[in-house]
């Protein structure tokens, strides 16, 4: 089949995984066999169905008897949502600033440059830690905001580089000579050409945002219970690694598969764009 020649099997598998994740994220509620808040103390630490448990809890139960499958589905939903908002938010905000810096130049460029440099002084995670420490309580909205702050800088850098190189391109100068205004040139000419690169960057960043969120949640300073995410689940399951490893490993496997698949797709997309 030609589809196998154009898209190597690994890429196809990644597409399939992403599709499944999307469905899980969108329909976590209806898909979940149990209510995630339902505590069943008589049913604690049941192993997954394939390891001797029952099919009532296909992936087993945790220390409070809650169903792991339902928790994992909800975790996927939360993690994906945060990653999506964080990535898109960071991309839009960062690119806008980057293009602005490139086009206007002067003090605007200097100011934005200082902000970018400043963020590069400490590793992003450390910066996120500082911001988290400052929050009175880790509300969901604020956490997403921190995700946006985490990621904007590299889009700003990229957009600025693209903008600067476009400015010196003859086709931009030609449009100026023809009488086109700045707004028109940026939106109708520079942006469409930059779109491919920006989108590829977003697809590469998406898994990174998942990583950051789950890391922070795992460490206990990200999403707080009663909300849950994949990172929170792993963090909670970490102490049971000896007696009930499935509590941490189920959400862990999901993160693994998700980030690898999305990374592969992102790399593949980048190769496509680069060849142009």
């Amino acid at each position, binding site marked *: 089949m030609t589809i196998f020649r154009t898209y190597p099997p690994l890429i196809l598998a990644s597409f399939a995984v992403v599709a499944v994740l999307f469905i899980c994220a969108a329909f976590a509620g209806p898909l979940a066999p149990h209510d995630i808040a339902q505590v069943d103390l008589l049913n604690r630490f049941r192993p997954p169905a394939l390891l001797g448990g029952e099919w009532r809890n296909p992936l087993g139960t945790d220390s409070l008897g809650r169903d792991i499958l339902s928790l994992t589905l909800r975790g996927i939903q939360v993690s994906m949502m945060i990653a999506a908002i964080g990535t898109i938010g960071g991309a839009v905000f960062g690119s806008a600033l980057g293009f602005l810096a490139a086009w206007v130049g002067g003090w605007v460029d200097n100011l934005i440059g200082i902000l970018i440099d400043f963020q590069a002084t400490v590793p992003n995670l450390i910066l996120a830690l500082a911001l988290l420490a400052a929050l009175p309580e880790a509300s969901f909205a604020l956490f997403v905001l921190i995700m946006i702050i985490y990621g904007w800088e590299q889009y700003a850098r990229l957009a600025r580089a693209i903008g600067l190189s476009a400015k010196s391109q*003859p086709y931009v100068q030609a449009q100026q*000579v*023809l009488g086109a205004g700045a707004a*028109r040139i940026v939106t109708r000419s520079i942006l469409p*050409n930059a779109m491919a690169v920006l989108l590829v960057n977003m697809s590469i960043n998406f898994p990174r945002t998942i990583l950051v969120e789950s890391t922070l949640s795992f460490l206990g300073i990200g999403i707080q219970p009663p909300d849950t995410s994949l990172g929170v689940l792993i963090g909670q399951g970490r102490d049971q690694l000896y007696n009930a490893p499935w509590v941490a490993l189920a959400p862990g496997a999901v993160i693994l598969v998700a980030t690898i698949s999305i990374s592969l797709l992102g790399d593949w997309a980048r190769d496509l764009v680069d060849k142009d």
Partner: protein
Amino acid sequence: MAADSGRYEDAQPLLTVEGLGIRFGGPAETPACDDVAFSVRAGEILGLVGESGSGKSVTCRALMGLLPDAAGVSGRMRFGGEELALCDRRAVARLRGPGLSMIFQDPMSALDPLMTVGRHIALRTDADPVGILHQVGLTDPAPLLDSYAHQLSGGQCQRIAIACALARKPKLLIADEPTTALDVTVQAGILDQIRRLATEQGMAVIFVTHDLAVVHQLCDRVLVMHRGRVVEQGPVDAVLRAPQHDYTRRLLAAIPRPAMRGRRLGLLPDAAPAPAAPASVRVLGEAPVLKFDDIHVQYKRGDGSLVDAVKDVSLSLRRGEILGLVGESGSGKSTLAKTAVGLVTPARGQVVLKGEPLDWNRPQMRWRRDVQYIFQDPRGALDPAARLLNQVRLPLDLHRVGTRAERDARARELLGETRLEEHLFLRKPGSLSGGQRQRATVARALALQPEVLICDESVSALDVSIQARVLNLLMDLRETHGIAILFISHDLSVIHHLCDRVAVMRRGELVEQRGTEALFAEPAHPYTRALLSAIPHLPDQTGAAAHPKEVEPA
């Protein structure tokens, strides 16, 4: 002119190539080279000529074993008595160094930016580097040994690249367009150097170029390639004066030269002159349509110091006139032209359009309709993401000329005028050739019916035959629409062919300005004289000396 050919006539050829074929991709693909055969003798300079896609570069790489493994190579070569199959890259590679050597087009990137010149040479030979650098014509080599590539000029870098190639005393040097990226005065020096090396050391040279005039000046024999095949070969004078093959004839006819001045290119050289007489002064009206008044432009360098790019230059352009602006790199010709369209702001002086001074701090749309600019690089001048038709229609959209349907129709008309095929209108620039893109750029510039067209090296990146088409187009425009054209180029042959008057610039200053015939017949300024004497000529050209001499870069 070619040196006497008697000294190697009875020697066995040093290199013989037979049945060379090169194929990229599968058997269904057109071969890059097909059944190429030729030979070179010791001390002989063979010119290898062709346009882009002719296969001349890949032929050379095949002889050096530098083609990628994926390329399918067939054929045989005999070098210095040894016989090899060309597909055996290892064997071919063993001939490198003392056997064959090669230099390439871009001199600056031929050298390692992190390595001194001295070390480059030391890697290749234990001999004294100063001696080798003397050999390639560098007059004071000692301080150069500790220099890095970025500290040197293009001409110096190319000489050093030649020195590197010569360090192991090769019997055959392949030069792949080594002077194409250099100024004409620098080129003259390098050509001279190569000629001397061939004569004094009996080194054979294969000189690849697209420029037949260079071939005439430098080479003993010539090989013409077209679409991967050898079309014609023989002694230079014979081939250039009496070409046998149709392609060679067409190629010669497309080259601008003094004898064709004012006529459309592409006519066979022995055809009767076209009824249109060479335009002497077909100017409509006395008042200049565009004037540069004492333009002075300054750039700021990294350390804050100012450098004068254009020094108090005044020029005027009349309606229907084609003014040539000539200079080498760094002369400021492009910078000057850009002040007319607001891409550069002069520190002093002003540009006057139809009597109205242009203040680009407060741009008026109507100025844009009167003056248009065509850039050198056709690849960069078009938006890669937009279709051709839309881009040609853009100026009409911006100036709100007529209805949408009318603009569309007009854009199609314009593209048709440049003789671009209709099925290309809706394509994006990426899938078009350089010549097609440049024609689209011209169409776009003409959309608003400007009175002045500025062509900044617009034909320099094009193949000879495409260049001829664009030059003919420009002549048509001047006749039918009365457009004034400011034609910027470093190529004096083109200028001589196309322009009514010529202005020569050097390092920001206007050095000389006269009618074309007068300037070329009796150049007044020493720099102009140096420039003219550096141009290589084709046979039967009148004008400057047929023996270009070594010129100091002025």
